[in-house]
């Protein structure tokens, strides 16, 4: 007893302690995409190694894939080369590949849960920092670099140190027009972008208990933006209901056995935590970032900070961020005119995100001069959205309706900001240059808030449009 989910999963997957004191940890599910894997497969070949457990690795293409319907071979030579490379690697490695023809392609952190690959109690690794997303199902999931992708391919293991656990308890209930994105942005605002270094974040409390699984995925997704490589939520009935019936989920009698095992992985009620933080869910407002990291965040009706009121380095950092963002010290964030609205990404590219945004957009028009994109996180999300007629709502309002992929979250395809455009974005990073233009500027917010900004032409409290 007194164990956290992290303790239990760690113990179940520890192969041995290495001479250094790190754990050799077995990885139950390995996800691969085209950007961080080619060098790993090359390193394997150089050392004469092969993929040890090919059935435990799954691959897709998401980062460079065009979302505008371009067909293979792509005109973009390097993108085409990366496609060819991953096709060769999964072919030689005997790895299941969710390419476009499969009908199940999508952003790696969208398709894992959607296909039932992601399950409670697993260890999950992917060469992508937002792997923390999968913790929403009660898994221990973390992002790794390319050398560790190589390690997992070759051995199904990683050398890693066990983190501490901070429980973040969100009490009460969320107000109308306040979404899971606002919850995680508030947490990052409170604990800072480096507050989570060395920790796994366990999210709990009434707000999390009541939250949909898609909302939980949004919260865990941005754990890494709080510095925490791992974020998770204990599995409960919502989790089991979510997993049931998915293509790779256990079925029939096996499902019952799975639920027994999964429920045993949850943190004990008297578990020991290294730290506990409590937040009042009712106090959370729709949030908007104003700076160059996700900790630079305020409620939509608040003002950006004034560096003059801050000391030394903190003041300098705020001044640098405001200058890059072209915002005046102490100015209101609401009313700021935007150039681009982007709905999508592994944070907010799921069906409920599109539904929440469509509810705002319906019967309204994108403001003149605003370029608006709706990009489903996977082919299955896109199919479902079209069944529900969401595509038509977006198109009627003046949005572009795209194919699935990462798109303007990091702009490795042709979806990019131009010059110093200001983007209202449902993605996860407002870093300098993140959306494809070195001087482009990003305001992170919930998909409903992006929709509100798109139709108003400026940052707007979505609650006024509900």
């Amino acid at each position, binding site marked *: 007893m007194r164990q956290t989910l992290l303790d239990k999963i760690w113990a*179940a*997957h*520890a*192969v*041995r302690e*290495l*001479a*250094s*004191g*790190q754990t*050799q940890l*077995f990885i*139950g599910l390995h996800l691969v995409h085209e950007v*961080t894997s080619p*060098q790993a497969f*090359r390193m394997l070949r150089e050392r004469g*190694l092969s993929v*040890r*457990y090919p059935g435990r690795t799954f691959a897709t293409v998401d980062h*460079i894939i065009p979302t505008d319907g371009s067909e293979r071979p792509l005109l973009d030579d390097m*993108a085409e080369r*990366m496609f060819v490379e991953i096709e060769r690697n999964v072919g030689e490695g005997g790895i299941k590949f969710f390419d476009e023809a499969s009908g199940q392609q999508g952003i790696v952190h969208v398709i894992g849960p959607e296909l039932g690959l992601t399950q409670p109690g*697993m260890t999950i690794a992917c060469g*992508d*920092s937002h*792997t923390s997303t999968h913790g929403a199902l009660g898994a221990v999931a973390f*992002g*790794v*670099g*390319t*050398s*560790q992708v190589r*390690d997992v391919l070759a*051995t*199904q*293991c*990683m*050398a890693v*140190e066990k983190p501490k656990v901070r429980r973040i308890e969100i009490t009460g209930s969320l107000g109308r027009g306040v979404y899971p994105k606002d919850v995680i942005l508030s947490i990052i605002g409170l604990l800072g*972008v*480096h507050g989570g*270094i060395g920790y796994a974040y366990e999210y709990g409390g009434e707000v999390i208990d009541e939250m949909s699984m898609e909302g939980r995925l949004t919260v865990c997704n941005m754990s*890494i933006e709080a*510095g925490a*490589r791992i974020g998770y939520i204990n599995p409960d009935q919502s989790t089991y209901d979510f997993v049931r019936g998915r293509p790779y989920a*256990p079925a029939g009698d*096996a499902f019952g*056995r*799975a639920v027994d*095992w999964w429920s045993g992985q949850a943190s004990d009620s008297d578990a020991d935590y290294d730290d506990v933080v409590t937040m009042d869910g009712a106090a959370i407002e729709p949030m908007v970032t104003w700076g160059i*990291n996700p*900790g630079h965040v305020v409620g939509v009706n608040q003002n950006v900070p004034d560096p003059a009121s801050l000391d030394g380095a903190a003041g300098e*950092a705020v001044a640098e961020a405001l200058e890059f963002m072209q915002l005046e010290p102490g100015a209101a964030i609401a009313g700021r005119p935007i150039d681009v609205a982007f709905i999508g990404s592994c944070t907010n590219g799921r069906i409920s995100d599109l539904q929440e945004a469509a509810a705002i957009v319906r019967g309204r028009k994108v403001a003149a001069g605003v370029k608006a994109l709706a990009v489903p996180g996977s082919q299955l999300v896109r199919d479902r959205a079209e069944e529900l007629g969401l595509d038509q709502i977006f198109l009627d309002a003046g949005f572009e309706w795209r194919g699935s992929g990462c798109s303007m979250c*990091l702009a*490795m395809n042709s979806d990019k900001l131009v010059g110093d455009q200001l983007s209202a974005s449902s993605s996860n*990073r407002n*870093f*300098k240059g993140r959306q*494809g233009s*070195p001087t482009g500027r990003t305001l992170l917010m919930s998909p409903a808030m992006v929709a509100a900004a798109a139709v108003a032409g400026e940052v707007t409290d979505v609650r006024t449009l509900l």
Partner: protein
Amino acid sequence: MTDSAITRVAGRGLPLRGNDIDTDRIIPARYLRAVTFDGLGEHAFEDDREQANGAHPFDDPRFAGAAILVVNNNFGSGSSREHAPQALMRWGVRALIGQSFGEIFFGNSLTLGIPCVVLAESEIVQLQDAVAAEPTAEITIDLEERAVTLGDLSFSLQIPDPVRDSLLSGRWDALGELLGAPDETAAVHDRLPYVSGFSG
């Protein structure tokens, strides 16, 4: 693999000031459009350098040939891209000293044999000032003694024991060790109920 042991790193420093310098800034995403890590060195901090109009420390001739970056809080946050430490390594960086590091960046650097060691905030500031005042002076990171020295300055550094051990013993690239436990790995694989789909 003791010939790859890293016990100390000595070289000229480069003060790179600012908190939360993320890996998108270290190497912009457009350079991830590649199937190798070749040629990344020249693009390290490309957009920051462009925007600084020649005033970025990477373009300051006084710091040419530097091997040790002295950084502030949460350096290398954000994206897991190993391209970031690969770019720094190819630019010539062999170690970093900072107040804290993004965790994935820290691990990626370790796998390349690049130690990231930690000093207190005030010590970082002193070290950055000292390097800026005398760029040709040599910094020494002594992992055995857990010390960072530069001229008269000497600080005790922090590094997690397992990380220090793996550097000192030359096992910082973990793959060799991980390959050494196929039977234990298979045992874990076989006993995890989800591997067989809870077949009962």
